[in-house]
Every structure is written in C-alpha cells, then in structure tokens.
C-alpha cells in the first residue's frame, strides 16, 4: 500500500479532489494533513494541491513557504520521498526553492480556466515513467501560471532534462497559441534534479474519471501505486 499525504494550507481548495482521484487508484491510501501538523514520517509521497494559500497575498505561495510544512517537505524530499505540487502547490514548491524558477502573472493578465494539452518531456519522475512523448489533456485554473527563470537557470533546467511538461496543441506540436500563459519555452511543469519532486500548473486530479471529461490525470496519478518511500532518487536519477 502506498501512503500519500495531501497537505492543506489555509486557502487550499483541491485537497479533497486529490483524495477522491486517488481513491480510484488501487493500492493507494491518502490522508489530508493540516500544514501546521504535517508529519510525513511513514508516508511514501506527499501532494501539495492547488488553491489560493494565504489568499495569494504578496506572491502566490510566498506565505505558504514559511509554513512548518515546507521544512518537513524539504526533509522528506532529501530523504527520498516523492513530492507532487499542482497549480498553487507548484507555486509553493518554487517559492520554497524545492523546484527551479517562479510563476508570475499570465501574459494576458487573465485568469485562465481551460483545458490544455501538455507533452511529457521527461520520464524521469515517478508520475511520468513510461509516458514519454505522451500528449495529456488536462485542465488549468490559474492567474499566475507563467513559469519564468533567469537565463542560466533556464539553460540548466533544459540541459538536465528537468522540463517534464510542455504546452502543445492537441497534435503534440508547440505553437504560441497552445501556451496559455506566456511560460518560457512553453514550460508547464518541472522536476528537481533527482526527479522525486515534480510541479505542474495543470490539475491531474480534475481529469481522473470520464465523468469529468478526461482521464489523463489518472494516467499520472495511478503510478503512485508503485511508489515507495526512499526509492525515488536512486531509481530516477540514474535512468
């Protein structure tokens, strides 16, 4: 059984969606943890869901990074735990320095609530193992989804294969109109160097059953069933 912790900050809104989506995966059990008493010992993976933690005040994720949960996540990740951040969770992981870059206001200033297509660019994460080059259709809902970094970080992220998802059209082709927010190099999701921490703007938990219009999120989340604490870095770094 894979034990998955789902963190809840004040303003998190997708924790129960994640718990529901993961209830569809055999071999996974979940627990929603309040960020102030998040103890991750004994868990195999942790999810930082979407929402508007602390009202997105100052910058999205800026206040949440000061939560004791961030130090706990850092320890957990160093120790080999698998961490997934979606939407605001991605913003928090970037603010906390667990992932490279930052998310800024969408280039058209609009809150984008849409279906997008992303192409899997790296299989070196527990969630994209064997999904290389797959084009996944997933929903987004964000006002600050534009991933940016300084040129050196961008070059490093590209060179080390840390880009995991890129916005594409439904045929898998990169076009300016397929990028919903102006992200550099059409980046929709990145991983850390080791591959056990992954962040993305789309919501896999909102496309995990046909009733919701798609199951591509399930394809990612179902892989959690084979995740065990501590295996990730060894497995994913050396592939």
């Amino acid at each position, binding site marked *: 059984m894979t034990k998955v912790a789902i963190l809840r900050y004040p303003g998190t809104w997708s924790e129960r969606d994640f718990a529901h989506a993961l209830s569809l995966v055999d071999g996974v059990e979940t627990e929603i943890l309040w960020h102030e008493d998040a103890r991750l010992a004994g868990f195999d993976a942790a999810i930082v869901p979407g929402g508007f933690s602390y009202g997105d005040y*100052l910058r999205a994720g800026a206040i949440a990074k000061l939560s004791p949960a961030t130090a706990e996540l850092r320890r957990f990740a160093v120790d080999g735990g698998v961490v997934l951040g979606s939407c605001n969770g991605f913003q928090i992981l970037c603010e906390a320095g667990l992932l490279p870059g*930052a998310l*800024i*206001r*969408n*280039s058209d*200033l609009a809150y984008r609530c849409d279906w997008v297509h992303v192409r899997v660019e790296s299989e070196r994460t527990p969630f994209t193992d064997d999904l290389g080059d797959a084009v996944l259709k997933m929903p987004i809902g964000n006002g600050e989804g534009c991933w*940016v970094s*300084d*040129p050196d970080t961008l070059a490093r992220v590209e060179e080390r294969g840390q880009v995991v998802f890129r916005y594409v059209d439904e045929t898998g082709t990169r076009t300016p109109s397929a990028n919903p927010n102006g992200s550099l190099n059409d980046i929709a999701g990145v991983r850390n160097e080791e591959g056990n921490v992954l962040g993305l703007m789309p919501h896999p938990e909102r496309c995990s059953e046909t009733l919701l219009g798609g199951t591509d999120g399930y394809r990612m989340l179902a892989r959690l069933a084979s995740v065990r604490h501590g295996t990730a870095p060894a497995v994913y770094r050396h592939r």
Partner: protein
Amino acid sequence: MRFVARVLVRPKTDVRDPQGEAVLAALRSLGHDVSGVRTGKEIVLTFSAPDERAARMAAERMGDQLLANPVIENYEVTLEREIVKAR
C-alpha cells in the same frame, strides 16, 4: 528609534511585466506617447531599531526572506525616521 522603511519591489529587467505591458497599452490608447511601463509594489514597514544601520539591515533581511522573490524581483529600501506628530 522608530523607522519607516519603504521597500520598492520591482520585476527584474529581464522578467516580463504583463501588468506594465497592459498599462502601457492603456496609456497609448489614451493618446499618451509612452514607450515603456514597468510596475512594482511598495511595501511600507514601521518598526523599531537601535540605529539606522540596524534598521536597514532588518529591512533587507525582510526583503530577502519574504518581500521579494530573488528569482524574479529586485528591491530597494529607502529609510526614514518615523515622524510622530505632537498632539
């Protein structure tokens, strides 16, 4: 001593500023001949410190730890003594 620190947070020059671009377009639509707009935010802090040097260090520590994200933003601190008006 009481100090007021004004922390001016700006997007780095090589980071896009969509708000600035929107304001630029709006100003042009009003007929203003503006060639560039960059937006930022001002955060005003009031606090006590033993002297000006300590106050500046405190404000910069706040800037580094929280007020600006060094990946995308720069900040500047201007410091003044808090003026308490006599009743």
